[in-house]
């Protein structure tokens, strides 16, 4: 237990704060600003159900990254939940496959109103490299009403945080 605690202590807090605008890319400053805005708008928790409706799995890698200590989404009360019934927002990657169309629609129906839908990735936004086909319905908006689109292949964690913020801000 002691080595564990020592390791935690040595690692320190890595979440990039608003004040530490040292990063050349401005990533740290941006994360801090986003956190402040999210808190100001929400004032409390936001719950998200992520649905992979046909992605290549790279979008999911970046969704996971949002929960790493640098971006620390959950630390600000934004939480990924298991059931759409517990969710305020669906974060959907695409393209929506024909084989996932029914499951995605059911997840949407199970999400209580008012609900937000954020489409992530080029495929979720405009069907991307896969397009519409016998197996693909195309963009998420072909199947569900979409509030905000976050393009990118895959979108960076920062871009997704901005997208979540935009959706919440517009709904407020």
């Amino acid at each position, binding site marked *: 237990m002691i*080595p*564990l605690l020592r*390791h*935690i202590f040595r*690692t320190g807090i*890595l979440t990039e704060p608003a004040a530490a605008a040292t990063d050349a890319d401005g990533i740290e400053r941006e994360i801090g600003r986003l956190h402040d805005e999210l808190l100001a708008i929400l004032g409390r928790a936001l719950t998200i159900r*992520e*649905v*992979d*409706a*046909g*992605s*290549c*799995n*790279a*979008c*999911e*890698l*970046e*969704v*996971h*990254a949002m*929960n*790493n*200590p*640098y971006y620390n989404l959950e630390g600000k009360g934004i939480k*990924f939940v*298991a*059931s759409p019934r517990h969710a305020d927002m669906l974060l959907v990657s695409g*393209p929506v*496959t*024909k*084989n*996932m*169309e*029914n*499951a995605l629609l059911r*997840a949407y129906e199970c999400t209580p109103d008012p609900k937000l839908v954020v489409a992530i990735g080029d495929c979720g936004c405009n069907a991307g*490299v*896969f*397009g519409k*086909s*016998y*197996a*693909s319905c195309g963009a998420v908006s072909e199947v569900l009403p979409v509030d905000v689109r976050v393009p990118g*292949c*895959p979108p*960076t964690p920062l871009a997704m945080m901005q997208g979540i913020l935009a959706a919440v801000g517009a709904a407020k």
Partner: protein
Amino acid sequence: MHFFDDPHIDFAPQPGQGAPIWCGEAPSGFALRHFAESVRRGGGRIAAIWGTDCRRTGEGFHLHCVFGCDPGHLWVGLDLPADAPHYPDLAELFAAANRMQRTTRDMVGIATEGGDQRPWLRHGGWPAGWYPLRHDAGDPPEFANRPTDYDFVKLGGEGAHEIPVGPIHAGIIEPGHFRFSVVGERVLKLEQRLGYQHKGVERLFGGADLARGAQLVGRVSGDSSCAYAWAYADAVESACGAAPPPRALALRALMLERERVANHLGDLGALGNDAAFAFGLTQFLRLKEDWVRLNAKVFGHRFLFDRIVPGGVAVDVDAAALNAIVEQCAAMEPAVKALRALYDEHAGLQDRFVTTGTIDRDLAQELSLSGMAARATGVLLDGRAHRQGYTPPPPYAALGVRPATDERGDVAARVAVRFDEVFESLRLLRLLAVGMPAGETRVEPAPLPGGRGLGVIEGWRGEVIVGVELDGEGRLARVHPHDPSWQAWLALEFAVLKDIVPDFPLINKSFNLSYSGVDL
């Protein structure tokens, strides 16, 4: 030349710089079946199966089977008549052939004689009898997309019941359906139904140019983008007679090893988390973020998409960038070592890892398993490393890769192999960065009409295989990407037996298989 003392099929080596591959044609379905029996007897494995519609050029259909053996891979073709495209069922010999054969029927409409005839990738989205990869398939018929029933194998008996899971899972992962048959918490059987990620990738390759093919193949499974792009590039270069320069090969290896480390770091963290050790997730995700941020800085993409292209690489790096890679490796090694010590000494974590989700070496070979999961049972199979009768392709031949193995075959073994592979990859990365050859990074491959090639790359999960056939104009006629998860999904069905339902997420994560890679 002949393999496994089988006289029916004569093989010739495939030209090119990639992994060693021999090509041969089976004169008949009987000969193919006979050869497959010889492969099985000789300890070989089934690596991939797919079909091609060749009727446009006045032929029938063509079946492709790739077998793995000690010296490399054997690519066997079989001509099938246009009016009766049937071939012998190989699933009796290799269990892993089952889903590949069912997919071949769903996609191209060539079927096995007997055996499992359930559809695999075709759910309710398009009608039976319409085959997307036939050249005259045209637009799909109007068809209501209704959920379909699937004929799961049912278990009876007192107290036995089923737990259906998915396609949407509880966590942030890809969709797929798991049907558990349980008594109490004990898992009696797991049957998977996949195909939810099927987005029609294979059809998109038809008629595409080489660059568009590279873009698509790098998105078959996003976590293995480099492995796919390299296997595709190998196949195209072999088909076109192009030889990428040494610097390009070293840069490809640099990116492939970075992809391997990134995935192992993420999974090692997630494995801690699935055993309620959130500390592990936080620590490893932090290291992974550092890792992919340097990817973005040096190569311009966090997951290195579109950096490996036919003929070479699309990005060059300067001395400062190579130095940054060496420095990062030097910093990463003690950081991961410290976490390994904490994992090893954590009694609660080890209690969950040890003896959970076990498959033994015999089963791994029976299921034609490759890659990290196979090495965790003691199978010494790594396409980057020398073994009896096998020389790895450049640049690995000169690096002296030491494959990581463990005999236990459980979650703990897969964790141990992943740790060892991180350290080995860090060593290789330093060797590659320090010894980076100078020179060009790309040649332009001239598309050779009618050419064909196969590429095999040892990705972080296992062997990624890409078969490429060019048409009369030098465009892509058919590309088949094969993920190691085809075989490993089957291994997962066995690994959960004897364990309890709450162990499944942990066992699943220790493999972390691709859905998109097999659903295509």
